[in-house]
């Protein structure tokens, strides 16, 4: 039997959040954490969490699994228990730092607001070519490790700077995307983008502790991207 500790909170009926202890027969299988939730929801339909693709592509089921943020659909129970926090028990909490709507569902408005700030689309003020804007293989290669972000929010909600200033610090996810457009040869708004980032909060609240790198389910490196943004700001201003 697998012991599971679940963060539960229904603002309509509960005064405050609590941890619900349940047991589940996994028949000895090393299920994914999302499978565990699906089985538990079968017996308690009031349990709320987000999910969609169930294969690590949509980024819906980001949650805190035994103390570490990750995607429930691609985290096996065995890996979750290896974290060491919780012993042999699977401990599931919502992503930290953002308001909880219900159970494992958080309000991601501030996360999306920061994403919106970096203008996550190509800006190009030159006349559009007849067919498409071309890139060389080398120019395209610069976007590798950046474009793969699925906006699951595991990184930003693992970042203490984002916990303290989610309204002012863009956060690792947004900054990874900011660099994705700064590095794109087809984008001509580099100066405007950098000017928007040169304040004490947007980029410079990153202290390089690399929690984001540690938790990213896609193996991306936001700290490195933030370093590139800093270097661009530095070479522009000195």
């Amino acid at each position: 039997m697998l012991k599971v500790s679940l963060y539960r909170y229904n603002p309509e009926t509960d005064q405050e959040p609590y941890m619900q202890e349940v047991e589940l027969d996994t028949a000895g299988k090393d299920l994914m954490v999302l499978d565990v939730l699906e089985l538990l929801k079968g017996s308690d339909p009031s349990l709320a969490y987000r999910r969609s693709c169930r294969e690590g592509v949509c980024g819906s089921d980001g949650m805190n699994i035994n103390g570490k943020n990750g995607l429930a659909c691609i985290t096996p129970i065995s890996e979750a228990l290896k974290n060491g926090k919780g012993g042999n028990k699977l401990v599931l909490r919502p992503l930290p730092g953002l308001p909880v709507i219900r159970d494992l569902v958080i309000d991601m408005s501030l996360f999306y607001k920061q994403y919106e700030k970096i203008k996550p689309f190509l800006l190009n003020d030159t006349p559009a070519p007849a067919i498409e804007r071309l890139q060389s293989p080398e120019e395209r290669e610069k976007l590798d490790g950046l474009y793969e972000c699925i906006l699951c929010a595991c990184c930003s909600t693992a970042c203490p700077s984002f916990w303290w200033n989610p309204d002012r610090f863009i956060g690792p996810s947004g900054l990874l995307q900011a660099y994705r457009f700064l590095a794109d040869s087809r984008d001509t708004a580099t100066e405007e983008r950098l000017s928007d980032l040169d304040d004490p909060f947007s980029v410079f609240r990153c202290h390089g502790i690399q929690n984001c790198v540690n938790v990213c389910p896609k193996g991306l490196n936001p700290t490195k991207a933030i370093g590139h943004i800093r270097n661009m700001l530095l070479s522009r201003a000195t």
Partner: protein
Amino acid sequence: MVSSVTNLGRSGLSDWLVQRVSGVVLLAYMLVVGFYLLCSGSELTYAQWSGYFDSTFMRVFSTAAVLSIVAHAWIGLWSVSTDYLTERMMGGRGTVLRLAFQAASAVVLFTYLVWGIQILWS
């Protein structure tokens, strides 16, 4: 762009650069003074110690170190105050507490700056 009027250099980049440069100055200062102390051993007298700091080089270097401490400390304390003493963390009194903390830090650091320069150059 997030606006701020209380950080040291009005831009995130300048604060970041000052923090790094001042850190390097302080490390160099500690190494130079530490090396002198190690070489002097236990026979160091007050006259030798005082004479060491009387040289123009050490006066200039010490002044740079005092300026670095003040700048480094302000950027660090400002960051701490804008992390924890905020409306988000403490409600309406966050702004009052933050400004009071920043004012107290400024008074202490300014005092250390003037006092340090007075000791070094008088």
